[in-house]
């Protein structure tokens, strides 16, 4: 089993101008633990929407790489969005699902992935062009290349253990994040 914090740390190494969206849950803490970044956008409500935010962004910015880093609970809540993404085929979008098979933030209740729901197979059947399921930490280098250069849509299914890590809570100012994201990505705040 991968350690989620170490996996995300290595995944975001030398991230450059990668745009990173995180969903409700522990994945946000994993990304924030690597240091805040103006091209990080942490989503604090509307559970299930992270993947589709990634689609809207990837369609608007075909010149940039977009990574959604989120948990199995977030993906399960809107499984249909994988089909939506599959139908639009954004080459620059990667969904990274950190799958610990539990709702860790709310008391470790089991999710459907622990009962056999295979999110990698789901992504594949929805039309994701590249689907990888790393099991060893030294496979992260390949996943990082996929994020930056892969012909997507790509889905990374990272099964992780349930190790406890520090809760690193980043900004929850949606307006502030929007403005800094637009500025950092070269779009004027007024458009």
């Amino acid at each position, binding site marked *: 089993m991968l350690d989620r914090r170490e996996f995300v740390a290595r995944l975001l190494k030398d991230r450059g101008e990668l*745009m990173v*969206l995180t969903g409700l849950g522990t994945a946000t803490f994993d990304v924030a633990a690597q240091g805040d970044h103006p091209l990080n*956008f942490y*989503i*604090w*409500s*509307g*559970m*299930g*929407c*992270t*993947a*589709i*935010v*990634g*689609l*809207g*962004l*990837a*369609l*608007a*910015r075909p010149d940039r790489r977009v990574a959604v880093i989120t948990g199995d609970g977030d993906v399960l809540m*809107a499984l*249909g*969005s994988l*089909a*939506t993404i599959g*139908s*639009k085929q954004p080459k620059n979008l990667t969904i990274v699902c950190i799958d610990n098979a539990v709702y860790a933030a709310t008391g470790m209740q089991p999710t459907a992935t622990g009962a056999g729901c295979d999110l990698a197979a789901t992504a594949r059947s929805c039309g994701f062009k590249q689907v990888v399921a790393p099991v060893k930490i030294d496979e992260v280098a390949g996943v990082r290349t996929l994020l930056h250069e892969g012909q997507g849509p790509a889905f990374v299914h990272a099964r992780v253990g349930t190790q406890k890590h520090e809760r690193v809570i980043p900004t929850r100012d*949606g*307006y502030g*994040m*929007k403005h800094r*994201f*637009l500025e950092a*990505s070269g*779009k*004027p705040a007024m*458009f």
Partner: protein
Amino acid sequence: MAHAQDQASPAPGADHSNWPDRIHAVFKKFNIRQVGHVPDTGHTRLIALCAQDNEIKDVVLTSEAEGPGLVLGATLGGERAALLMQSSGVGNCINTFSVLQNCGIACVLIVTMRGEFNDFNPWQRPMGQITEATLKLCGFHVYRVDEEKDVEPVVAAACDMAYGGNFQVAVLLSQRMISRMKGAH
């Protein structure tokens, strides 16, 4: 309910039955580049117009609940987005609408009403009856259109308000008006 009747009135006797084309023209005028939708018979022509338009990325959603997320993502990428759905879909979005308010995201939502006038499916009534109130509770400014002649000025006013102030604005298209379109059910 707000109306845009203070706008310049079109010529008397003008044909407004092509209101989907007029909404599409307003979308173009306001540089809307992404349109997310879940079909309804009343939206058929507008969806087709958006799908045929090379400057608009149309995204067919598996659930209306995906719509607000699409709009947030488009906005972060510097593009304006709008959503099309029927009134039943509004209920599917209650929680995800929150991202729009939390981040100050402009959104124009065009809703075809169901369950309010001569609907073949009376089970549409409960959600149709609470659509306007639901949208208001979710932070939307809501316009309602009953006459074809009002479609264009009201949608334009909605776009002006939404994209001008980063607000969420909905336009409800009455079922009686929609059903006047030939072939609509």
